[in-house]
């Protein structure tokens, strides 16, 4: 089982929007490699004929009727907002 490369760690961290320090990259490269090696065990089984289970509960069609309910008042909308501009959430430029 191939170890995860430094570039792969950086790629995954970028996809997940995690800024890692150099030390973190090295540490996680080791740990992620160990974990991946352990979980790669699933590949030992021949499961070509077994369907996937996305959900342990076999139900379907859980829908709600199209009837409005009250929305949040603005003070609750923004109660936890780190930055607000009028009645908008504000972020650095996207």
């Amino acid at each position, binding site marked *: 089982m191939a170890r*995860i490369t430094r570039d*792969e*760690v950086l790629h*995954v*961290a970028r*996809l*997940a*929007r*995690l*800024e*890692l320090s150099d030390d*973190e990259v090295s540490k*996680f490269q080791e*740990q*992620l490699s*160990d*974990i*991946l090696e*352990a*979980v*790669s*065990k*699933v*590949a*030992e*089984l021949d*499961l070509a004929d*077994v*369907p*996937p*289970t*996305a*959900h*342990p*509960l076999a*139900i379907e069609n*859980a*829908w*709600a009727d199209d009837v409005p309910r009250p929305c*949040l008042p603005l003070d*609750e909308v923004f*109660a*936890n*907002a*780190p*930055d607000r501009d009028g009645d908008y*959430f504000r*972020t*650095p*430029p*996207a």
Partner: protein
Amino acid sequence: MTVDTLRLTAEETNGLLTRKEASSDEIYRAYLEAIDARDEELHAFLHVCDDDPGEGIPIAVKDVIGTRGIPTTAGSKILESYVPVYDATVIERCRARGLRVIGKTNTDEFAMGSSTENSSFGPSRNPWDPSRVPGGSGGGSAAAVSGGLAPWALGSDTGGSIKQPAALCGHVGLRPTYGTVSRFGVVAFASSLDQVGPVAKSVRDCAFLYSVIAGRDENDSTTVDVPAVELPRNHDLKGLRIGVPTEMNDDAPGIEPGVRDAVRKAIELAESLGASVDECSLPLSVEYGVACYYLVAPAEASANLARYDGVRFGLREDGADFREMVMKTRDVGFGDEPKRRIMIGTYALSSGYYDAYYGTAQRVRTAIKREHDALFERFDVLVSPTSPTVAFPLGAKIDDPVAMYMNDVLTIPSCMAGLPGLNVPCGLSEGLPVGLQLIGPQFGENTLFRAGHALERALGFDVVPERLR
């Protein structure tokens, strides 16, 4: 009237109230005093409420469960200042029965861990031996109930976070059938696995609290109506067919002899109470369960934890643009365990790897489910130790994620299959509690309550930690 917070079950505490021997406020204050007295050592709570409306008895709530107006951090720095504007459905249901939130209990960050050492706010400690972990991720709720800081508590269980701490702290904990308890308002870890459940001193308390929180919730598409809960009163186990999977008992990976012996004795006791006991096998589930879990849960977590982007709530670090702000916020806000799991999950879902990792794990999940289903045609309950070991010292596994993950080897398989599991304390090993895991078929909670209750009475385990008696 003094309230013996260490010893009273929730049912008994409530008895004080109904017999008017103590008021709701007196009881609430008694538990606040217990927290004052013992929580400095145990660190079971991340937040203690001075007061909370209601006419009933107190309840402690794991800090992943959202509480309106009461901080909810999920054990993470990224939510350190977060105060929900709405109650989780389980909290609404507890409030409707008069229960009063006494505080929010410590948890591994985003419920990711098996020792509560991954909490951003410091670990909780085991009331039986404060140098040891209380288990995780629900170590706070476990320590609170075991240490007499709350009559009962709500926990959440993804791969063993109710059952394993209950085992390590010597009390009762139920992980309900997936879909029976609403997840609405509960900070998500892995959506297809997360279940809220009761943490208590007795099986009857567990059954009662389950009856309060269970049932279809229109805000959670993955919930269903559940069979009426029967509070157990029986003394025997006549007619109960118990299966003992060898891979989870004598042959369990890393099992301690003291744990094995205590569980064996409990099984013999069950037989003497009228149960039939037979060996059986779950080869694939035990061999591949942990690997399957550590692909499925991180994959779902990688998406569930993406919303912590510093825009609408939670921590925000400065950045020149949106992307930089998000990356810095998540770097500062998340601890190592969420970072590891987010990266594993992202990797398992990413282009070119999906089939080999996530897709394969989903097929293994089917195989695990089928293996369990087949056994439940022959048995009513499967038993095993909940944890292969008793509580381990703080720091013992914190630097070895894979070793830490193997802690959950016995609790994970039934979680993957969506099945209910109950921990009942069944004895001591090296002076520390050993937990017996009872696994039932889908919606088989009443069977677990009945079996657990009879065993609990026969075992006579004293849930008050020796050093606190």
